[in-house]
């Protein structure tokens, strides 16, 4: 029987410990001082800069880059944090290639944008490394606000509320804070326990109490919060994972990509983390790429992403797709899962059906393909689980299965705001969008409470 890399089935210890360390090191290593100066020199300090317009949190990018160039890294960090208190994580996980860097005029001119994300990381690393706090709390207002979920939206809201002098209690279902920053991001994008360091940095302003292990609907009800607090912000993200709707979905070896990603992030010993020899990931977004690449890095021999539409329809950015390809992941298009084939209850293959557009409808062509797979990850999207909201009191209005909010993040319930992935709004489901939503909802709450 083969061992190590070529071990059959789902198994750990496929690689040497050095290989694990190497594979899961920083995807974009930080710029050193010299690199940061050279890169910052490339910024043209554009008028009404396109990068700034593309940033969901509207960071004054030309200004922060100029501050790096003039040797004022702390000032640069403040420019970033003024708009985005989670600027450190966003510098690491933002798909800059579809946001600020995509519209950089240097991209237009030379096809090489200023590396805005890495410069942002440089500045925020300096400030966080020094433990420099730029904000202090305003005089206490005596108002109490509950924040549900300690993810990007919740943390951004909590920080802004605390700055305004409100007392904030954050209720987080998971044992650790950070939300998807802690549980939902590929390990090589956030090394050295950065998510927790950022939680500490954000909460250091004071006035923010985080209670972990407190799940809405299980440990408390929304109606209790609205009674006890002056305002509530809901930022609990998406709790559900979309089903494959394929036969055999419950076989051993079929798992949610988000759970795999979370488990990997929490693993203290990557070598003990089992992964299949042949892995198939169903989906076309960032989660699919994160799961596929990490499977490969854990030592899977063959990893294939199967997406039911074409390359141009994939939610994963071009950069992410290239990253997958560079790591040896095969991406196949126009395939939808039909049946997981098992042997003795364990997945051994997946049968997929080719798809095509018929008019504006996606249909199966009837032709099928069978891929050997001892592990199948579902990454076809997450959904909002509203049940927890409805334990008591008035039901909150939903739209397209998520919480309905107005332009300021107000829900249909008085005193209740919401933001991040759990709401339906014009923003994309990105960390940086959640930060913007949390920040803006906090301002709305502040105006309402003090109005």
């Amino acid at each position, binding site marked *: 029987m083969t061992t190590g890399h070529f071990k059959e089935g789902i198994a750990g210890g496929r690689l040497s410990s050095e290989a694990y360390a190497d594979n899961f090191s920083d995807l974009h290593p930080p710029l050193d001082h010299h690199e940061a*100066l*050279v890169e910052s*020199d*490339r910024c*043209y*300090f*554009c*008028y*009404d*800069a*396109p990068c700034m317009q593309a940033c969901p949190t509207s960071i004054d990018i030309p200004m922060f880059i100029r501050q790096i160039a003039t040797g004022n890294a702390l000032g640069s960090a403040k420019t970033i944090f003024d708009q985005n208190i989670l600027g450190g994580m966003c510098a690491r996980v933002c798909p800059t290639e579809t946001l600020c860097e995509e519209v950089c*005029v*240097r991209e*237009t*001119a030379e096809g090489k944008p200023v590396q805005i994300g890495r410069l942002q990381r440089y500045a925020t690393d300096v400030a966080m490394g020094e433990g420099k706090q730029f904000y202090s709390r305003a005089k206490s207002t005596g108002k109490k606000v509950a924040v549900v979920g300690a993810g990007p939206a919740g943390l951004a809201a909590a920080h802004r509320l605390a700055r305004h002098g409100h007392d904030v209690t954050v209720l987080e279902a998971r044992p650790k804070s950070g939300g998807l920053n802690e549980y939902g991001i590929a390990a090589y994008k956030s090394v050295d326990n950065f998510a927790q360091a950022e939680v500490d940095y954000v909460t250091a302003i004071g006035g923010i109490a985080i209670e972990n292990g407190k799940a809405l609907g299980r440990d408390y009800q929304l109606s209790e919060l609205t009674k006890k607090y002056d305002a509530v912000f809901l930022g609990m993200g998406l709790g559900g994972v979309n089903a494959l709707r394929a036969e055999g979905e419950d076989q051993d070896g079929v798992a949610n990509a988000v759970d795999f990603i979370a488990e990997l992030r929490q693993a203290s010993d990557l070598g003990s983390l089992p992964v299949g020899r042949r892995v198939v990931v169903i989906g076309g977004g960032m989660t699919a790429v994160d799961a596929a690449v990490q499977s490969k890095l854990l030592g899977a021999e063959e990893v294939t992403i199967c997406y039911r539409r074409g390359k141009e329809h994939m939610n994963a950015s071009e950069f992410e797709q290239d990253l997958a390809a560079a790591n040896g992941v095969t991406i196949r298009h126009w395939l939808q899962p039909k049946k997981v084939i098992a042997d003795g209850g364990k997945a051994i293959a997946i049968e997929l059906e080719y798809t095509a557009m018929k008019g504006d409808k996606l249909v199966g062509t009837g032709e099928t393909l069978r891929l050997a797979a001892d592990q199948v990850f579902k990454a076809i999207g997450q959904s909002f689980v509203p049940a927890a909201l409805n334990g008591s009191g008035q039901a909150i209005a939903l739209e397209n299965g998520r919480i309905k909010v107005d332009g300021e993040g107000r829900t249909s319930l008085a005193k209740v705001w919401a933001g991040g992935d759990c709401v339906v709004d014009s923003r994309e489901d990105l960390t940086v969008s959640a930060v913007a939503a949390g920040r803006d909802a906090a301002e709305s709450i502040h105006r309402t409470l003090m109005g």
Partner: protein
Amino acid sequence: MADIRNNFIGIKSPNPFWLASAPPTDKAYNVERAFKAGWGGVVWKTLGEEGPPVVNVNGPRYGAIWGADRRLLGLNNIELITDRDLQTNLREMKQVKKNWPDRALIASIMVPCEEQSWKAILPLVEETGADGIELNFGCPHGMSERGMGAAVGQVPEYIEMVVRWCKQYTRMPVITKLTPNITDIRKPARAAKSGGTDAVSLINTINSITSVNLDSFSPEPSIDGKGSHGGYCGPAVKPIALNMVAEIARDPETHGLPISGIGGITTWRDAAEFLALGAGNVQVCTAAMTYGFKIVQEMIAGLENWMDEKGHRSLDDVIGRATPNVSDWQYLNLNYIAKAHIDQDACIKCGRCHIACEDTSHQAITSMVEGVRHFEVMEDECVGCNLCVNVCPVDGCITMVPLAAGTLDQRTGKTVEPVYANWTTHPNNPMAKVAAE
């Protein structure tokens, strides 16, 4: 193939690129390397009188300013004349000249402003076989405090007096090096000419403090917490040097006086500009100190290529060609009207033209047209100032397009006149010269 051989006041060199008197020409080792790299000539680092040589500071001698990517734009130095023994220098000069007979070797000299001092050193220099001498009346630091260098160059009478001594005591051609630290460069040039100089060279370095250390509050370069002004050179000084060269070239009193152009020459293009404004050859220092001697090869090839392309056969076809085009402001054609034009295909939409125009000039460039980011010149506001061209990061994206005679200037509502007209006859000029009736 263009012939770039140079004959400057009878001193021949295979090309017009000389190294200026400075650290790169301090000793045989450097000069040998320079000649191997292709330099046409060198002006040896300034010699002082016999006796114990000067001493330099033992800390930083240079300060600098930088552009993007730490590209050196301006260099400042507080180094003095050679700190090596006179006889050592003379011996090496003689040997180098013997090794490189086809290259120009000029001795830069700075001795006290006394006839005897000059009379004493000139025969010693002559004996080396040097092709000529350059009188250092420019050095603005250290030596000037001792009554030499710029202290002489700032007093036209002294210049004339010393030049006269030199012409009297040596058969070698005399080049008088001028300091820019003076109000009107024509005055020392005229004095040098009156004294009988064969040529002038300029500019020497400009008094400068490059920066202040914000921790110690010492000027840079800092010597034990103190700094003294230094001499500034490099690409940043080129415009100042070009103007001074042109001033002398077009001054009726000094017109035709050979000029060796110095000041920030970094590329063949810079050199060609000096030649065009009237310099007979050029001297280079900072570019070599930044990039090494090899840069002369780019200068030679670039100059040759340009001359070939334009059909200039020899340097004489180029020298002074731009001098007649240097004019006083009052004679510029006020009927010449140009408007900025933005090439939309080349535009990268940085918006710098817009904000420069909007905040600081004439509000003549759009930023948004029909809800779309778009930068376009509004000709009814554009005065043709050229600021947008200068701040645009894309070469050739914005150009100044002259309006043809007979077309309408949308800004003034007037038709462009076909005739030349300047301020001296402009109706708004209270001093306007009215044509005699």
